[in-house]
């Protein structure tokens, strides 16, 4: 059965609101592959526009490592490239909230082009905030630009790696988009992925 555009809007709006709610209360598990050592103290996180990176403290590079591993020869360098498995969503940024609200209000009026303009402005301010991609994908979905809607949602997936709630929501959105585009098997696959979270 094909879902109507309004059904999408309601469903998607509910999820957006849920996400907005989640992101303000979500306690993000910060994992770092350097923090597993019992000997190493947890380094102070560097929080920057929503991303979190935990640099290794200098003392984790011991002398013998320095002599054998070229990776550790730089005075400033830490042992290896950093790549924490989770990126924290942007801290509640009032500018971002204002723009998301503005976009939401345009969407409700059916002015999706203006909503996209606001969301792209939001994206420039917080390019790693999942809410932006979720709402942007939604506008493309409503405009029946399914290809782009799915790609924007996939970009959201790449941002929320390690955050099960958000992954669930993005994969459900992708399922909606694929369903609307007539890609039933793709939708089923996306729903199965969503159900893993």
């Amino acid at each position, binding site marked *: 059965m094909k879902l109507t555009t309004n059904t999408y809007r309601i469903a998607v709006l509910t999820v957006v609101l849920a996400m907005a709610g989640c992101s303000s209360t979500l306690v993000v598990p910060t994992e770092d592959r350097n923090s597993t*050592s019992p000997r190493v103290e947890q380094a102070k996180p560097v929080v920057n526009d929503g991303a979190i*990176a935990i640099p290794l403290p200098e003392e984790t590079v011991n002398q013998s490592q320095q002599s054998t591993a070229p990776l550790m020869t730089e005075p400033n360098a830490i*042992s290896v490239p950093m790549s924490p498995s989770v990126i924290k969503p942007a801290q509640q*940024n*009032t500018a971002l909230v204002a723009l998301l609200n503005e976009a939401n209000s345009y969407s409700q009026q059916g002015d999706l082009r203006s909503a996209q303009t606001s969301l792209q402005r939001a994206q420039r301010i917080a*390019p790693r905030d999942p809410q932006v991609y979720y709402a942007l994908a939604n506008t493309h979905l409503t405009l029946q630009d399914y290809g782009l809607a799915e790609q924007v949602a996939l970009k959201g997936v790449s941002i929320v790696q390690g955050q099960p709630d958000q992954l669930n929501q993005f994969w459900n959105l992708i399922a909606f988009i694929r369903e609307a585009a007539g890609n039933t098997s793709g939708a089923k696959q996306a729903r199965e992925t969503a159900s893993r979270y």
Partner: protein
Amino acid sequence: MATTKKPTRSRKAKKTAPTIKQKLLTLSYKLFFAMIVLFGIALVFIDIHIRQQFEGKRWAVPAKVYARPLELYAGLPLSLGDLKIELRGLGYQFVSKVTQPGQAEFSTTKAIIYSRGFNFPDGNEHAQQLVLDFSNEKLTNISTYQGNPIPLVRLEPILVGGIYPLNNEDRDLIQLQDAPQGLLDALIAIEDRDYYQHFGISPKGIARAMWINIKAGSFVQGGSTLTQQLIKNFYLNSDRNLARKLMEIPMAMLLELHYSKDEILEAYLNEIYVGQEGARAIHGFGLASNYYFAQPIQELKLHQVALLAGLVKGPSYYDPRRHPERSKRRRDLVLKVLNEQKSITDAQYKQAIAMPLGIVKRASLLKGAYPAYLDLVKRQLRQTYRDQDLNSEGLRVFTSLNPIAQNKAETALVNTISKLEKRHGGKIKKLQGSMVVTEPQTGEVIAIIGGRQTRYQGFNRALDAVRPIGSLVKPAVYLTAIEQGYTLISEVDDSPYTLTMKDGQVWSPENFNHQSHGMVPLHQAIAHSYNLATARLGMDLGLEKVINTLQRLGVTRPIDAFPSLLLGAQGLSPIEVATMYQTIAANGFQMPLRSIRMVTDNAGQELSSYPFQLKQTVSSNSIHLLQYMMQETARSGTARSIYHHLPSSINAAGKTGTSDQQRDSWFAGFTGNRLAIVWLGQDDNASLPLTGSSGALQAWIDYMATETLEPFVSASPEGIEYLWIDQQSGQLSADHCTGAQQIPFLLGTGPTLAVDCVGQYNDPVSKSINWVKQLFR
């Protein structure tokens, strides 16, 4: 009879003589009549022409190109110094106490700015006083003057250029009410004091001018009214001759007949020629205000408007930049006339003549300062718009150019080139360079440099210099390897390599240091940019597969499948390289690089927008592994000098590139919020004593060191696991062990055997088996 004949003859004679006169007279009458008719017809035609041109679209208005507006919000990475760059570009006056729009005051951690407001296509920003607090290169708080917090506000965008018609006339149209009263008073006082009384021509003015000309013995002054001057500029050429003068008079009278004094004055304000910058002719006071003072006309003070009014008489002769003293004398004369006519008080007069000219240097004008960026904008615009629309319809083009980033990139590139030339003495002559900077998550191009003369409008190397990319191609080879099942610790062979091609040609690549390194793990082969390992790996993978990877990374140029492709014989322009690396920085999502956000008509109605578009062409898992290797290149490989200058936390990723015979020095790299491609080389393709590391990378570092950087952090995808690996053996280790390095693997592809911390294998028999396994991955 005779008496009767005489009179007859005489009558005849009398009759004949008047006949000629009469004929002449009649002819004269006819001619006169014909002339009147012709003159009348001409007048009718002239009248139609005057009205059509005056009422129709009067001027071809060039498209205006704007930089991105600076968005201000709490948390924005922005230093006070950055804000000053932006405000200088906008022509703000730095004062001790702000009182009007276009002013800013600064303390050590605070700025108060009085914004001018701007009508954006998606809403208006009104003029207001903003209080900005700064801490640690960040805008921490923004509020109104009354202390109410403001979540978000946009400053007006800097006008960075125009797209001009063939006659090169540039102007910013204004309305009469925009012009300060002082300017109108000054113009009328100095150019045409009877303006509001005459009917287009001023007999008094003409008599005065004639008297002066007779005294001088030559034509030194015209008695032109403002109306006549408008006619001269608007409809006629500028030759000073009698015919033109004769045309001017009826045309001026006709214009006055049809239009009000205010309408004529407004047209005059926009038409009049007031300066020249190269080929570009500066017309109208709206643009003159920006051109000479970098301020909007509404903000000009008495001494400034007097200078502009004085310029009309001879923009070249009184050019305040070339002849400041002459220009000041003329300005002061205007002020004196105003004072004599009681338009200004004695006190105002004295205050105004004490003021300096206050002309901004040409270098501080940002209009026309970014030819390379504008070049990209124009190319993108021409895909949609005709030239005549671009140079005449007054379109507004909103771009993503970031003047702060552009300023910093220019400084870094130019300084690095100078330093390198100095360091290498005569070995480098005429070193050139170019740069492309983007925002890696959105794909917006924020700065472009086309050559070391950053304001030179010539060859745009960032877009048009297609040069061999050297090792910048290697990420495509190693990404292909990952996709074909290699892990980061799969061993690759960096021993001497010779390939005999079908046509008998022999290809024997070498490493940069002419040494080979035997079996090396994949991640180290790219980090240290080993050529032998890469060539052998690429040939094993297949050239077609590598080309396919390059295409998925965004390279659209046809690529020849020659083995030398694997070491970067393929030529690309810096902007093409930026497209390729953008896909890597954006986690495998290919996105067209965008320089334009929106185009509107002159009333602000959207004509076209350029939305965020993207397509995932490389899987998150594969790109994550590649990013790791490029981060390692920055940590310990060929780009390790990054961390001599930049903080460890930025976690940059990148790749150096040096083309054959060191003709090109490249670096492509990114942090969380900046991707920059740098090329250095010589236009004659001569060899350089530079590699990617010792050349382009240094400019990249210099640039990044001035930016407020965010670390590059890519969330580890689900299909990736990080394992501690013993670097010697390639087996599992632990974080506390000597020589252990944490390396990402696709789930289930990591080694299964472990070594203990003193470097012994738990199961020596399995060592060989595992080694063989690695070979065939």
